[in-house]
């Protein structure tokens, strides 16, 4: 019985790396900021004029500006137009199933604290099929940055109603106009317990980058609601927030207290097109930190013991 048919064996790596010479480690001093050329991969498959292009460009800029190490950048997404993101980034990436990017990213974040975890997705992924995960990832305050490129419509499947479509929006599934009250993502995030909630729009690149940097620096679950226009199925959706289209881009009032949950909630209720900036930022211990603390406590009790010896102690109580 105790003979394992599949015992532990050191496994050689595969994928074109087998016969090559070992690669020397890279000294920190040899690290240079990644250029756009180095960090960009496939040409995006988005329609010309899509708001997502600007989010991608600013992500590249963020990686460059913050001098992130190439191998430490991870990009995770679910399903949707915007969720194609990882293919366009030349870095370790995962294109997961619809709506489940957040739990996937949680697994990465909790098991690999050395990595930068960025999640990109759309409003369907975040608030419809993945709505449950949005609440719980926020509640658990798992360290990662989540950018939702919200276009108020299902684009990849060609114009069905989204959970953020305004009432009256005519789609293929609501030909008489949408009937259901849309979700307010900011209120949802604040109520769920997100510790960083910001709002931006693809038409203001500097602001997008500013929010991304602030989100990245936040120790916890940081959520950015980024208006990103679907030029194909909901053109002009965000004109009211674009000064070049006659709209107005209002920043979050200077006097707003970002640690005041109720004030943030009220601000999130500002009439369309609302305002932009950080609505809520109130750090509390992350799940990453809480779990690390539990591990530390338990490890201190078994310090100096090999794993098999710890297991042996458990077995000793089962004799």
């Amino acid at each position, binding site marked *: 019985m105790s003979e394992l048919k*599949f015992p532990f064996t050191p496994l050689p*790596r595969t*994928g074109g790396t087998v016969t090559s010479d*070992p690669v020397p480690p890279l000294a920190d001093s040899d690290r240079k900021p990644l250029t756009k050329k180095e960090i960009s991969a496939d040409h995006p498959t988005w329609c010309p004029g899509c708001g997502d292009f600007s989010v991608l460009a600013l992500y590249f800029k963020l990686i460059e500006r913050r001098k992130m190490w190439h191998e430490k950048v991870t990009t995770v997404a679910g399903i949707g137009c915007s969720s194609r993101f990882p293919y366009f980034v030349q870095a370790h990436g995962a294109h997961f199933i619809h709506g489940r990017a957040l739990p996937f990213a949680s*697994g*990465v974040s909790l098991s690999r604290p050395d990595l930068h975890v960025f999640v990109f997705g759309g409003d369907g992924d975040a608030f419809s099929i993945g709505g449950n995960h949005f609440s719980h990832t926020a509640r658990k305050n798992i360290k990662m940055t989540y950018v939702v490129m919200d276009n108020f419509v299902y684009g990849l499947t060609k114009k069905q109603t989204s959970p953020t479509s305004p009432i009256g929006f005519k789609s293929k599934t609501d030909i008489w106009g949408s009937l259901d009250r849309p979700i307010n993502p900011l209120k949802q995030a604040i109520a769920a317990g997100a510790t960083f909630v910001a709002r931006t729009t693809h038409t203001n690149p500097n602001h997008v980058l500013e929010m991304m940097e602030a989100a990245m620096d936040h120790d916890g679950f940081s959520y950015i609601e980024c208006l990103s226009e679907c030029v194909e199925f909901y053109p002009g959706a965000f004109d009211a927030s674009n000064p070049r289209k006659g709209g107005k881009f209002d920043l979050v009032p200077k006097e707003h207290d970002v640690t005041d949950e109720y004030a943030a909630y009220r601000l999130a209720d500002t009439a369309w097109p609302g305002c932009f900036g950080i609505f809520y930022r109130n750090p509390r211990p992350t799940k990453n930190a809480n779990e690390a603390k539990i591990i530390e406590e338990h490890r201190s009790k078994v310090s100096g013991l090999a794993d098999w010896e710890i297991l042996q102690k458990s077995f000793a109580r089962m004799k």
Partner: protein
Amino acid sequence: MSAVAEGPSSADGQSRLTKINEAVIRIAGNSQDGIQAIGGFLARLAGRSEQEVMTFMTIPSTISGGPSIFQVRIGSGDVLSAGDEADMLLAFYQHSYEGHINSVKLGGIVLYDSDHVTPKPEWLERYRHVGVAISSKTVEAIGGTGRDKGKNIFSLGLLARIYDLDVEKITKLLGERFGGKDATILQNAVTCFNAGHSHQLQDLLKTYQFRHAEVRGGQQVVMNGNEALAFGLIAAGVRFGAGYPITPWSDIMELLRRELPKYGGTFVQCEDEIASISMAIGASWGGRVAVTGSSGPGISLKTEALGWASMAEMPLIIVDVQRGGPSTGMPTNVEQSDLNIACFGGHGDSPRVVLAPSGVEDCFYTAIEAVNIARKYSTPVLILTDQGIASRIEAFIEPDLRKVCQDITPDLSPVPDHKPYDLTAPDGVTRHLAPGTRIASGKYPVVTGLEHDELGHPTGSPKLHVAMTAKRRNKLRKLASDLPVPAVYGPSEGQILLVGWGSTYGPMREAVDTFRSLGDAVSCINLKYVNPLPGGLDEIFKGFRHVFVVELNDEGVYGYGQLGAVLRARHCDPKIRGITKVDGLTWKVKEIVDRVRAAVGGAPVKA
């Protein structure tokens, strides 16, 4: 009690001592009576006395209350099942007495609580009745306001007297179980036990003593299947898991949550089944094989993500502790009806590996093999256990932990280049490269559920879909060729071959022994590697006239159980037939024997 031999009268002259090889004791009461505790003590005692032990229990699916039983079979030889018939029934209530009297063999002992049970005259002749006022004697012993709480320990004392159990060892076990902050708890337990043990059993003519067991090479550990599986995962190096509570899987997640931090690991309780498999996949992508698991309905919910793991070729462990289905079904009963979903569940062609441990000890080692297969072949691996194995307690030789515990920390040293889905890889086997690994070429992989090229970028190319589908399939063919051919229990030629998997193994093997003892030419094989199946089965089947696949699921529209249908599809052999049942209970040896006889129409099965 098999092989009963009369021994000399005991010293007190009241009762005679009989040497026995084994005993089956069924304890019946309500779920809050602590009858699992008695069973647990007996099992642990057997383990320490180098005896074999196997238990069987039923629990109601309600939170508190409801009838519950615990059956213990202790023996000095091989114990492969919990026993068909009980030598002794310990009944706390009238309903326990009436409901379980049929499980006692004729002439067996019924030990009942005379405070609650009135024996039926018609049964008095068929079974030896021993009445003890267990409830009131317990109250008398401990006094105070404890009412009859502790009657389970009092009963343990009675059993210790009847079976001449090692009082010193039991007292030590009581100390380990109840010794804590409040000294009176242990004191009460010992008082109860002593009261039971010193109680004079006027009505009992005989007492029993187990023959000494052969010394087995090493110390035994005693645990249930869920515990063995969880500890096996820890030994295998798994340090991250995610799950959602569901019976009977929850025990595993509770244990991992409690234990993993000692090893630097974490287990996360998620918002739902889908999140838990997704989180485990995320952690696996992080570089170290992670685990998720569930039972019944939860496995259905996980199948989309399971398909992703197959497509993206991500190592992952999924535990399925099967219970009665479909839907909410029979949550606390046993069934082996998830074989189809485990092997084939999901949309598209999504090859994955399925292993089925056959007992508690096998759970421990299967967990390690599953992790190593997942790593080696970069594939999701399902461990298909069932409620029967999950909740039963067995004693087995402590594994050589220094040897089996393994370190599977990912290698993050830089590589020159990497294609996650390299089509030139021998047998289609590629390995996952964890993020955080620098790739000198600057070309980084994406893992994905879209059909993809060698670097993981999406493609609509029919050629690539054909090639990648073949890659995912071929690596499982390679695994199949690496699998050991199952060993035939019994001669390799005969009339009937029984084929079983999972918890069917023990009773099936005992059925073979029963047949053989009558001169019938019956053998069996156990299929642990369910998907892919090992090679060599055709050769084995050739040696027999009939092949019966014994399993706990429905015979289905076409008349075969789930594994039976797979074997028929694969081997196109009309002599493969099914013997199935869905009564929510594990196989009894006699059931298998009778069903086999019926299936051959009473024809002779001699060699």
